[in-house]
């Protein structure tokens, strides 16, 4: 038996109307080649642009390049399995309704994803809180958004949830404010304490010159005079500044002889006359 003729017979065997096994094989090969080419091009785009464009733009460019190549591969391959593009468009109308009903959640996520990409309330690398999840945005895909929580856990949020939740983006603006409350003893000089803290802030590069830090007496509390300290820092750096400064304030005040008191109660003992 001629093996070549036998293989040819198998390959040319019609599975569906006008579609042979060879056609399906060619379809798979074209899609596979498109995926491989897309991956290679994406890798090269990443290498070429890594240090030249911001991370978020790079991620978008990578995705655009990757999916464009896949779609081109798909358009080239699809006639081999008996679909013409014009037929697909007509069939797509009817199929769209059926599929739309069956995949409501997926479509909802997809549409939400498109709105998120257009509206851009978050970007890759932003520190955010979405609903009850807080962390750094790692990726914004068509159907879902992935977040690395502050403690390093991977969380995938469906885009519909992201779109309908309250989003707190800690990096959306250039600068942000945070505050401390520091209590000093009643016997200490509040003006002197304010001056010492202002001088300390002047030495720190990331405590912004403008908007100026605000330091003032907020309350004459039970055990101390409470100072409110409000600091503006670049949004990308505020947390580091916040964790650093409170202790430095404490050390600077104590060095200048300003006491930070414990809670205390003054008790007067009465004596009976006669």
């Amino acid at each position, binding site marked *: 038996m001629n093996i070549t003729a036998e293989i040819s017979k198998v390959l040319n065997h019609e599975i569906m109307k006008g579609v042979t096994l060879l056609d399906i094989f060619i379809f798979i090969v074209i899609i596979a080649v498109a995926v491989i080419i897309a991956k290679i091009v994406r890798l090269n785009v990443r290498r070429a642009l890594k*240090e*030249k464009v911001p991370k978020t733009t790079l991620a978008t460019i990578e995705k655009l390049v990757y999916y464009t190549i896949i779609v081109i591969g798909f358009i080239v391959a699809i006639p081999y399995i008996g679909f013409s593009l014009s037929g697909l468009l007509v069939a797509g109308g009817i199929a769209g309704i059926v599929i739309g009903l069956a995949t409501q959640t997926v479509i909802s996520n997809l549409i939400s994803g498109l709105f998120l990409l257009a509206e851009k309330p978050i970007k890759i690398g932003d520190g955010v809180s979405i609903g009850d999840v807080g962390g750094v945005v790692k990726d914004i895909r068509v159907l879902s958004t992935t977040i690395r929580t502050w403690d390093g856990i991977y969380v995938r949020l469906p885009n519909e949830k992201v779109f309908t939740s309250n989003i707190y983006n800690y990096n959306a*603006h*250039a*600068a942000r*404010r945070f505050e401390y409350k520091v209590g000093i003893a009643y016997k200490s000089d509040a003006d002197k304490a304010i001056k010492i803290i202002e001088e300390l802030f002047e030495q720190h590069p*990331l405590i*912004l010159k403008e*908007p100026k830090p605000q330091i003032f007496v907020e309350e004459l509390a039970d055990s101390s005079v409470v100072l409110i300290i409000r600091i503006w820092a670049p949004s990308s750096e505020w947390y580091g500044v916040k964790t650093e400064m409170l202790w430095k304030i404490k050390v600077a005040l104590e060095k200048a002889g300003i006491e930070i008191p414990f809670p205390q109660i003054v008790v007067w003992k009465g004596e009976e006359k006669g």
Partner: protein
Amino acid sequence: MFGKYDLNEEIREEDIEIKIGGRGKIKRYYRKAGNEEIEKIVSAESGNLYVVPVEPVNLPKLGVAEHLMIELEKPYIIEPYIEDTFYLKFPIEIGVFLVDKRDVERIDIFTMAKQKYILYGSPEQGIICRWWKSNIYNDKPEVNKTQEGIIRIDIKNSYREWVEVKKLVFRAFDMKIFYNDYAYMHAYINLLKKTMAETAFNSRKPKNMNASIDIYEAKGIKKFEKKFVMEWGL
């Protein structure tokens, strides 16, 4: 201190000490600036070490700011439709680069100048800038060469009214720094309105000066001449 050096060299100026050297390919790079010290191992057969002034937006952390704001000690007021020239001081950061025929590699950046940042504009729309304060000088001022450079400002009031200027903002990406024993830039300011101006740089090399290594070009980023628009006040 600025210039091109061999890979066996010791440079000292004021509180700055830079050493590179060693036997064979393995070299030790050591730098002390004030109280800060850094040490790296370099493997090289050829090439040079360049110590040059660079755009002052890299420290304490790259990415915090991309602009420099120079606040004027005293407000400057200019008549409608006239041009003027004056000089300011600007802070410098010092970049150390390894350069051979094929590539430029930044190995160190440090500064002796005070570092402070400021918000230009509102928190929602503004930008973070490296901050510096300078007097206005009619002629090139004396500078502390390890901390400051000189920037020549050619200012033009294109507006129909008198304009008061309290600060100037420049984009680091547009900067073109030159040096001999001090750092130098040449900028143009075009006052468009009472609260708006364009700032740009002259990239032509002055006589007897060398062009500094541009950190953006060293990263492979192509630069094209652009203007920065100060739209949040002068």
